[in-house]
């Protein structure tokens, strides 16, 4: 094979080669970064997870540990594991005549094994917490009338308050924290005399294994075997607190998906730039053929050219990644502390290179096999690119050539996903996505061709879409697939965020006050003197659906979220602000007299639990009193956060008399919560105040960090999307240029042509965007509901905004290419067209 030929071609098709190379480079760079960085992220997230749990392996029980478990822990310690015992209990701390119900955390001196405890004095915990001392949450000081240095009564000892507890990485997320946390030293445990028979204490042993987390799961298995009838729970940082774990898992899965999406988007970019290359070089190809070169010869040469360019792309990608990675701590301060960033991972780079290179070849194959269709006749009889259309036989050959490469790619992708089934699902889904995009686009274009509209510009633009050689179906399919991928990613990200993050919007209530009695609402509101909403709660059980008794699904096991548990019902006439109806026109049906008969509106989650539908009759037992109500509407919550919600809502009349209490949801500045608690403790001592402030702050902190991470990876795939746009438009540049020349010869001005192409590009972008929405919505729904087990919001407005942006971007991105269309002299252009 003669190298000079390849270089000549490379020189002649600079622009396309650049796009192709950029696509490969981008894919390789993002894969390398994501991949090598994936391990950093995993480590970072695992570190975070570990810090959240304070150990590799946790053993918890509500009773003192069994002898067998103690022996097992001693064995672990003998093998070099660090052991930290903790006791968590609620008790009353007293000072003068104040007492505050507090969460007492008694810990051994090596606490915490992982993560950190931030004290007001910024001292390390071990330095501050000595026997005979106690460290309290800052809100406790005003509530007990304390200052640092005072003594406080805990059980049967007096402990000196030495510091304030600002943040504990290991216990940040607890919704039902009934009192402020305090830390005490294990040496004082016996003297306090709070942990003894009949006490409600959570016993905990946290261990740090010398081999780190990988060993935790095996150790956990053997410990679980000796745990006594489930009373001793053994968890690893990876399994504990399923919510946190699920968040991390989802995040990692999502990052893998984005990296792959970037790869595939780049692949599509390669496809379109290779198409553009073959198209622009078709005269040259025809000449070569006329001189006696056969298709196989040319195919080999162009394949070599592609391989060369792809190799360039791979190298550029690795270089890019290498340059980029050290910048991470600068780009994401706080998200990636410098010590978490390792040098570029060679294995990751190799893996990414293999993926990028293979994908480039695979995606270039289609356009390259179309070389066969370029006939020498082209030189004599000009047919604008129509010769490039694939024939049935051609498709078979193409498939046969592509199959082995595709299989290799599938193998690599599946390996990348670390889970065969998910990998196959992903690829299958993608293939289906492309196919659907192709079908929809073809349909839309056939329709556009038939359409006979009279205004000149839109008609010309629409006709332009089916311009021979324009390959609009391919371009729109490409764009739509890319956009659908982007939109799907966007929607999944949005739902991830909604489920985990915006569930805690800044205006969400941060304080809940429970047990407000029926006649106390007004008094409470006057006392609290903050705007708040009262939610009425009536406890009841569901006894039957359509007369069929509701039975326990799992006998003997705790039935926490089954239909047999007690439910909180409420009565009101309108929807809560963050709910909407999915079935039924209004919350309740009125009868002929305009009154509300006895009926019930149910939340979608409970509908799914009980397979209920509109018109079903539910029988409740309101603390022994039966009540029958027909389902007249079904509601959904807009967010899955901390805002209150009710499974069953009934019209007021029927429940007003039933036993009920209320809770208040309040948004107030965190600094004022202690004052409210003190006030209520004095005036309405039976009320319980839940302060979610620390929790929401912590979630906000963690969430903000991950939003930035996720956004960064999403941005990479958006850049790939822009390359595709560019590549696609390059591919259809020639026929467009020709048309512009004809229009100008007929006397059309530049503005006119500009307008036609702008409208045409907008139509192209719009078609792609609409197809993308049609595909992305169900795809994202599927991913969220079945892949990630999240609730799903379609975010139509955001989808439409994205579609509009994509449409505009397509319109704008196409403009620079057109300037060339209108600048050069017409005579030259005509001649070029003819002679090329």
């Amino acid at each position: 094979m003669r190298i000079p030929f390849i270089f000549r071609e490379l020189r002649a098709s600079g622009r396309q080669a650049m796009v192709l190379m950029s696509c490969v480079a981008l894919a390789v760079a993002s894969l390398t970064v994501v991949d090598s960085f994936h391990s950093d992220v995993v480590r970072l997230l695992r570190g975070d997870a570990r810090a959240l749990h304070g150990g590799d392996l946790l053993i918890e029980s509500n009773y003192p540990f069994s002898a067998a478990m103690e022996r097992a822990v001693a064995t672990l310690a003998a093998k070099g594991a660090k052991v930290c015992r903790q006791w968590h209990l609620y008790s009353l701390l007293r000072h003068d005549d104040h007492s505050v119900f507090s969460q007492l955390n008694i810990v051994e001196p090596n606490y915490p094994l992982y993560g950190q405890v931030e004290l007001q004095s910024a001292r390390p915990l071990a330095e501050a917490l000595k026997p005979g001392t106690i460290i309290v949450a800052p809100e406790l000081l005003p509530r007990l009338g304390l200052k640092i240095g005072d003594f406080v009564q805990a059980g049967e000892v007096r402990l000196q308050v030495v510091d304030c507890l600002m943040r504990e990485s290991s216990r940040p997320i607890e919704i039902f924290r009934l009192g402020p946390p305090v830390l005490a030293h294990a040496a004082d445990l016996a003297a306090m005399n709070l942990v003894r028979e009949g006490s409600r204490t959570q016993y905990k042993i946290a261990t740090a294994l010398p081999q780190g987390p990988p060993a935790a799961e095996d150790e956990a298995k053997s410990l679980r075997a000796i745990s006594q009838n489930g009373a001793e729970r053994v968890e690893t940082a990876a399994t504990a607190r399923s919510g946190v774990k699920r968040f991390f898992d989802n995040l990692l899965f999502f990052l893998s998906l984005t990296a792959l999406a970037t790869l595939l988007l780049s692949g599509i970019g390669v496809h379109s730039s290779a198409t553009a290359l073959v198209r622009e070089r078709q005269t040259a190809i025809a000449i070569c053929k006329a001189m006696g070169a056969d298709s196989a010869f040319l195919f080999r040469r162009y394949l070599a050219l592609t391989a060369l360019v792809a190799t360039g792309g791979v190298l550029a990608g690795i270089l890019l990644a290498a340059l980029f990675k050290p910048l991470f701590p600068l780009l994401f301060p706080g998200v990636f502390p410098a010590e978490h960033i390792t040098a570029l991972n060679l294995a990751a780079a190799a893996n990414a290179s293999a993926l990028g290179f293979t994908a480039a070849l695979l995606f270039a194959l289609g356009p390259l096999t179309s070389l066969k269709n370029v006939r020498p006749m082209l030189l004599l009889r000009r047919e604008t690119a129509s010769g490039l259309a694939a024939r049935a036989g051609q498709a078979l050959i193409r498939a046969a050539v592509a199959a082995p490469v595709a299989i290799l790619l599938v193998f690599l992708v599946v390996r990348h996903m670390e889970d065969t089934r998910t990998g196959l699902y992903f690829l299958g889904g993608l293939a289906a996505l492309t196919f659907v995009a192709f079908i929809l686009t073809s349909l839309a274009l056939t329709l556009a061709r038939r359409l006979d509209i009279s205004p000149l510009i839109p008609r010309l633009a629409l006709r332009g879409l089916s311009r021979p050689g324009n390959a609009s179906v391919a371009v729109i399919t490409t764009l739509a697939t890319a956009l659908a991928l982007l939109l799907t990613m966007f929607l999944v990200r949005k739902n991830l965020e909604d489920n985990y993050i915006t569930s805690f919007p800044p205006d969400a209530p941060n304080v809940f006050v429970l047990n407000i009695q029926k006649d106390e609402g007004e008094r409470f509101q006057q006392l609290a003197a903050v705007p708040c909403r009262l939610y009425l709660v009536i406890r009841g059980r569901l006894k039957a659906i359509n007369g069929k008794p509701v039975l326990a699904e799992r006998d003997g096991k705790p039935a926490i979220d089954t239909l047999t548990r007690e439910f909180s019902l409420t009565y009101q006439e309108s929807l809560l602000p963050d709910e909407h109806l999915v079935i039924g026109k209004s919350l309740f049906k009125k009868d002929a007299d305009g009154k509300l008969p006895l009926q019930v509106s149910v939340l979608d989650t409970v509908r799914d639990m009980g397979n209920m539908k509109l018109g079903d009759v539910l029988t409740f037992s309101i603390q022994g009193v039966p009540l029958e109500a027909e389902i007249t509407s079904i509601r959904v919550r807009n967010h899955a956060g901390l805002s209150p919600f009710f499974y069953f809502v009934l019209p007021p009349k029927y429940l007003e008399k039933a036993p009920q209490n209320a809770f208040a949801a309040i948004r107030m500045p965190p600094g004022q919560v202690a004052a409210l608690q003190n006030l209520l403790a004095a005036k309405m001592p039976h009320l319980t105040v839940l302060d979610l402030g620390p929790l929401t702050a912590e979630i906000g902190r963690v969430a903000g960090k991950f939003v930035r991470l996720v956004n960064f990876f999403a941005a990479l795939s958006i850049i790939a999307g822009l390359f595709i746009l560019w590549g696609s438009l390059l591919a259809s540049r020639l026929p467009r240029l020709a048309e512009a020349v004809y229009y100008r010869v007929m006397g059309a001005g530049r503005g006119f042509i500009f307008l036609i192409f702008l409208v045409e590009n907008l139509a192209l972008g719009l078609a792609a965007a609409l197809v993308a929405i049609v595909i992305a919505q169900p795809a994202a729904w599927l991913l969220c509901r079945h892949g990630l087990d999240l609730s799903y919001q379609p975010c139509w407005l955001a989808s439409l905004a994205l579609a509009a942006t994509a449409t505009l971007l397509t319109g704008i991105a196409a403009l620079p290419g057109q300037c060339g269309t209108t600048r050069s002299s017409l005579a030259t252009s005509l001649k070029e067209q003819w002679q090329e």
Partner: protein
Amino acid sequence: MKHLLFAAASLLVFAACQDNHKPAVAKPAAPEITIVAMGDSLTAGYGVPEEGAYPAKLERRLRAEGYNCRVVNAGVSGETSSDALSRLDWILGMKPDIVIFESGANDGLRGINPAVPRENIDKILTRLQEKGVVTILAGMRMVTNLGSTYINDFNAIYPDLAKKHRLLFMPFFLDGVAAKPELNQDDGIHPRAAGYDIIVENILPLARQAIAQWRGK
């Protein structure tokens, strides 16, 4: 297990004998007795199906003994004594003959000043007596981690009020069940079905006494 078998056997013997002796049990024709089990999650049977909680089990036992009665589960999980006081009218609306009253544990678990449950329970018991309802008071003992000052104040509420109102009194609702891992759910607070069997055993004699008292009126 042996204990249970013995109990079952003695029941059979008792049933076999009943024709020859003076009827200790009401005839089927006697009006149905309404017993309302009022309380928190311990009564409601948090984490067990309703038929596994003590009211349903008690009803089965009483019916097996020939009493024509129903035991209504009016337990509400998470209920404090303040909640109980607010819904007393609703309970009275069921026209109970007998009320088994168990409350206050949630006040204690939230560290509410013991004066609050004392006052609430006192009011409830007064109302029940005014309405002529035969009442069994189930006592509660607070978990020791709250400290001796608190638990001493709290634990005293029940015997004091039982004495004041001269009630049938069960000194500790969870007697023989509390702090036993095998009888409780993993949270260490709520009994399993097996735990409720013991509770029913403990209540049964009081229930019989209450029925006798009610008949005496």
